[in-house]
């Protein structure tokens, strides 16, 4: 016998959260989905167009190049930041005041807002007054990132690495610190080389933090917007125009709401798909 008094009023307590989630997530997302199936001329003139915007977006060469660019950018920064972050973490002292100082120093770039980071590097890389720009020219490299696509890329990658390698380093450091000494001692007595110790002792213990680091950097870099906008404005030409900026141009600049909405949905699904793929592959390996 269930003698408890049924009182469903408790569900009312969930209402505020439900409302917040609805207004912050579900309703905007559904609005976008709604827009993506319509051609909106003005407030009173809208037509259902089915998947027209989707096929148009997927066949748009500008979307395809922006997407390819985005993939290249994300792959590049992951390929550099993850190993570099691990190396930085491995090079740090295990404890003491020095370690604390380095940790604080490493955290600084993470605390700087994106548009400030963009501005810093915009100034830093200027060939006329920027420290890096002037130095590189002085060293004999004709450096002007506003004129050369490859130099713009170089500057952008340098900026992202400067901004985010710390995150990987901090996460890796915490992972390394959690490995008890006997693990290193056992490997040493077994005669393992530095590389073997890294491969069989450290890397397995770092796995979970590296998954988090990679996921964070993957999602974040895939959505990058502010920094390139401030630094290069997507140029020269459209050589550094990534997906977010392309989308903003469509939605805000040209007011193509339908195609922009379809674009957004595709964009969102891609990020979701990427993370899901990455996560399931990594997780299936560990079993």
């Amino acid at each position, binding site marked *: 016998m269930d003698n408890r008094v049924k009182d469903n009023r408790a569900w009312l307590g969930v209402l505020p959260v439900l409302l917040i989630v609805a207004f912050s997530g579900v309703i905007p997302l559904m609005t976008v989905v709604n827009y993506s199936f319509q051609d909106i001329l003005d407030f009173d003139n809208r037509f259902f167009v089915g998947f027209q915007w989707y096929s148009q977006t997927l066949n748009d060469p500008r979307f395809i190049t922006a997407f390819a660019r985005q993939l290249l950018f994300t792959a590049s920064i992951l390929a550099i930041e993850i190993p570099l972050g691990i190396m930085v973490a491995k090079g740090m002292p295990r404890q003491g005041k020095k370690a604390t100082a380095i940790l604080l120093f490493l955290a600084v770039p993470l605390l700087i807002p994106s548009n400030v980071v963009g501005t810093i590097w915009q100034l830093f890389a200027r060939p006329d007054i920027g420290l890096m720009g002037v130095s590189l020219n002085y060293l004999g490299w004709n450096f002007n990132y506003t004129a050369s696509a490859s130099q713009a890329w170089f500057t952008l990658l340098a900026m992202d690495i400067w901004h985010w390698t710390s995150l990987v380093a901090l996460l890796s450091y915490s992972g390394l610190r959690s490995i008890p000494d006997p693990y290193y*001692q056992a490997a040493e*007595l*077994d005669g*393992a*080389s530095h590389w073997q110790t890294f491969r*069989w002792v450290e890397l*397995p213990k770092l796995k979970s933090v590296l998954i988090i680091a990679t996921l964070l950097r993957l999602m974040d870099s895939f959505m990058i917007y502010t920094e390139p906008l401030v630094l290069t404005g997507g140029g020269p030409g459209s050589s550094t125009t990534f997906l977010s900026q392309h989308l903003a141009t469509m939605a805000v600049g040209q007011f193509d709401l339908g195609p922009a909405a379809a674009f957004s949905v595709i964009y969102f699904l891609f990020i979701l798909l990427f993370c899901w793929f990455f996560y399931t592959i990594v997780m299936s390996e560990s079993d």
Partner: protein
Amino acid sequence: MAEISFQDISFSYEGSETETIKDFRLTIENGKILSLLGKSGSGKTTLLKIMAGLLSPQRGHLFFDRGEVTQLAAKKRDIAQVFQFPVLYESMNVEDNIMFPLRVKKLPEIEARQRFEKVCSLLELNPILKSQSKDLSLYQRQIVSIARAFIRPNLKAVFLDEPLTALSPKLKWQLRKKIKMLQREDGVTMVYVTHDQTEALSFADKVGIIDAGALVQLDEPKTIYERPLTTFVGDFIGNPGMNFLPAEAFNTQSDSPKKANKIGFRAEWAEFVEIGEGGLSGKVVSFEADRTRDHEPHGTASIRSDWGQMRVKGSYQKSVGKTVGVRLNNQLFFDSNNTLINEDG
């Protein structure tokens, strides 16, 4: 296989003012099992780490046979160590874990395989060879660690740092047997650090008692038990520890050596007698029976005498609170420095 000798080794940890190890001298015979026994913080693990090359002593010399290894890197010493808690390569399965040291050393595959099969059959590891490390029980993990230590051929020595601490008594006993089998197989020198005296005494060829970073006594287990060189050893070894009473207590029955300050006797070296017969007497404070012999409860009695507390093993059928006589059948004498007085000279 090697003889290991410490020559006046001193070691202190960084930032510590006292020396953990002080002018330590010890020779460990080739092919024997030595147990280092001491309380926590006595420096026994530090000694092990110095031998393994994981710590470097500030003063003194360490030799493997004739060769000095004081400054030699750990990985070049050809030794293996089993740690208190099992250390495995988590991403490898059992087989790869055990084979790892041989693969690192690039041992020929056929020889490696032979070693592997021998060690695995001795340790009965065959059913779990393909298991992942993370799926193993604590006991299995420690066996795998032990296998990884003993698989290496031509080792100078194997060091075990309280490897059985985390296990239940029954498993301890099983694993101890297996470790001994492995040691006999190769005749490798073995040093076994423990704070468990039963383990040390039942297991080792020789036992070294460590206290405050110094070797107090190095002897065979039987000698350690029967002739402790200091009152510390007497008290530390045995359950219960040795009884100590002032020498005057003994003078009532016969004369003790001149310098004698204390007499020491094991609980089983004394027996209950009628009051006045034995020279010592006291009130039984408690009695703990462990078995029955000839229908009489046999056990350990705690007795409060005029000279102090003592524990006596024997058959006792009276009730607690009665006064009994105690006769010593054997005893040792200690001087005022708590050191054993050698009656032979």
